[in-house]
């Protein structure tokens, strides 16, 4: 009991504490790849701290929904993060739900963000939420299919068991189906974290935004919470990627030996993934909005191939 409580505490702190650093790291690497110095590594912390201290200005046309939505979104994302293993497989809320739960918590957060964007009636919010829901309707099945390929091999949807199984198989796990699944998942990761080629997190061009357009009416602590939630979500998606595809070295539970090595390996994997995101963002331009569905469909096609391979082989 005590151990579960400790695990819960540790993972929560890790999630909400590490998420801004991952964001900062991606930004820094991106800047260096473009010959820029870039913002300080800890800039995201400063921004969240600043926003949380500030008073929020809310549109007079907005209802209570606008004020409550950030808390709901933040909680949904952090709860999802407690189901996905980080550097120990026995995730604190692992008993409460499996990977499907994670996907639906993401979906809930998405719906609340989109509704809040519609609430104040601004044109950009409407545009952002319409785009987010249209693309979300394709991201969700794409994520589900990508995860399903791994679940089929492990014959379970419980993430801690999946992670330990994959880790236990060591290098034997790498086969063509695995390669395809990694690619399928990578596309979904780019989309779910709102990055180029799907969305551009750094743009100031309101008309091109998807996720940021939904936050334009927010300010102060509400904006801080929403930005923080987005960063935590990015970390959760990366955690999911790591535990499904590169869990090697993961410790079983908090009581087991090798926890320190596991943590170090985990941080290393996170850094590598952050670098991958930065490289992809630098190499590609944003695709035309109507070419996002084909991009995600290609991820789905890969996932279907993985599933067929898993069943046949």
């Amino acid at each position: 009991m005590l151990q579960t409580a400790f695990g819960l505490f540790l993972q929560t702190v890790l999630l909400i504490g590490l998420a801004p650093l991952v964001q900062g790291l991606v930004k820094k690497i991106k800047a260096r790849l473009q010959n820029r110095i870039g913002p300080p590594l800890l800039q995201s912390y400063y921004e969240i701290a600043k926003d949380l201290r500030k008073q929020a200005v809310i549109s007079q046309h907005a209802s209570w929904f606008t004020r409550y939505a950030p808390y709901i979104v933040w909680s949904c994302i952090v709860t999802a993060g407690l189901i996905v293993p980080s550097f120990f497989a026995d995730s604190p809320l692992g008993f409460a739900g499996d990977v499907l739960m994670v996907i639906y918590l993401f979906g809930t957060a998405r719906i609340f963000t989109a509704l809040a964007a519609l609430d104040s009636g601004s044109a950009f919010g409407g545009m952002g939420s319409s785009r987010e829901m249209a693309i979300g309707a394709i991201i969700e099945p794409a994520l589900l299919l990508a995860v399903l390929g791994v679940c089929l091999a492990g014959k379970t949807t419980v993430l801690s068991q999946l992670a330990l199984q994959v880790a236990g198989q060591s290098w034997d796990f790498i086969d063509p189906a695995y390669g395809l699944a990694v690619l399928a998942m990578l596309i979904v990761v780019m989309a779910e974290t709102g990055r180029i080629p799907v969305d551009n997190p750094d743009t100031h061009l309101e008309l091109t935004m998807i996720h940021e357009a939904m936050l334009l009416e927010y300010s102060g602590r509400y904006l801080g919470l929403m930005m923080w939630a987005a960063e935590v979500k990015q970390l959760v998606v990366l955690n999911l990627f790591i535990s499904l595809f590169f869990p090697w070295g993961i410790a079983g539970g908090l009581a087991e030996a090798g926890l320190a090595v596991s943590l170090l390996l985990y941080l290393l994997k996170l850094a590598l993934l952050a670098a991958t995101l930065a490289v992809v963002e630098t190499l590609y331009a944003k695709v035309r909005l109507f070419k996002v569905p084909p991009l995600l469909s290609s991820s789905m096609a890969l996932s279907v191939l993985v599933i067929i391979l898993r069943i046949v082989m």
Partner: protein
Amino acid sequence: MMKVKDTPVAGLRAAANAVSKSGRLPLRAMFANDERSLNGNYVLYLLFEAEDGGFSLLTSRIDARQPLEFPSLTTLLPAAAWYEREIHDLFGLKPTGHPDLQPLVLHEPWPADCFPLRKDFTAAPEVGGSISVKHPVAVHGEGVFEVPVGPIHAGIIEPGHFRFSQAGENVIRLDPTLFYTHRGIEKSLEGLPVERAIYRIERTCGVCSVSHALSFSQAAEAIAGTEVPLRAQYLRVLLAELERLYNHIGDVGNICAGVGFAVGASQAARQKETLMRFNEELTGNRFLRGMIVPGGVTTDIGGELIRHASSLINALLPDFKDVVEIMESNAGFIDRCRQTGVLPRQVAADLAVVGPAARASGIDADFRRDHPYAVYDQLEFKVPVRRHGDVEDRLWLRVSEVRESCELIRQALAFLASQKGECRTELTFPAAGGSSFGWSESARGANIHWLMLDANRRIYRYAIRSASYPNWPAVALAAPGNIIPDFPLINKSFELCYACLDR
């Protein structure tokens, strides 16, 4: 060179039709002048291209005692639409039969019957309350909605309100409202001596400073009938091309930024910054201000700086070529630019669009070659033209023009290094005053200025037809048919200036 024709106002349409050869020759500028104190009339001036390669000027007098109106030319020459609305706003002369006579320059709550460019307008009225712009819903239908954008934007850019009528993501119609920060520069110049006017004219806009100063200086020199020393002419070419260079490279980077292509955007930003720092080293000003004045150039550039400029240009070209190759080889980037924001040739011709926007749509026009000034007729350069009129063509056109500009700079530097000479003369204006046009091709197209001096050799009227003026309506026509997230890219491919309208 310039054929002048005067016509009674009742016959304006027929005369304009004849001078423009039924709209085939573009209307380059149209403005009014309050000459009541001179001859009791308001006078309309219309500048057309002429068939022999020069210009024809059509004038028409409106007697101040008669109804203050003239027949609208818009249905005949679509390019006249904005000019006529502006004349209506600022002079209170009504173009009868104009299909869309809404305010252009003056927004609410500007009082009615208050016309700033009339001579009896001396002080701005108290204007209280907030700006409200009335927008009747332009497009009706199921699923059609309006997206208002601006005038305050997220980036550090100038104010402009864009109203999109959309079905889903598809733009059906775009109504831009501009002129939010009109400064009354033309009005404020009236009564000034020529040598003091340069400071304000140069600041009409940041990124066309050289071109505006050059147009003004050439108009003043034409009135004085003075030939500017050869060395000054070459220096002017050098400055004008340096301005084009940093503009075009910056614009190429902005197009990359418009699609989130970070490598192109940051590399071009670096090169633009290099050029602007060199501008400062050369002239003491990043925008090359304070150099071109009526009569020549204020400061000579020689010796060390010329060698430095040569090595800068020699290093820039391969560097820029590398960036262009990165852009060319990125399929995702090209895919965003191709077939986006097409400006058809006929539309460009009807609106008398100028500069890279016109040349990318297949209109072979460049004032440096067609109406040579400074020493452009003694220099060798090509005028690139492309056909498709999409974002991609406007991008590659600028890339080609960067190469041509570098060639021109080399030729100018070669002359400046080998020949010595004066670079400024005094201007003496005729006692009776006079008027003249002056023009130059900026990075956005031709900036055409008109200067009229009174008998005291002070400015009686100054008119600025900036390159952005005929091109803005073209942006509104290039957007429909595209999706709204592509609009920033389309807008950046035209890269028009708001300040150039707010003169």
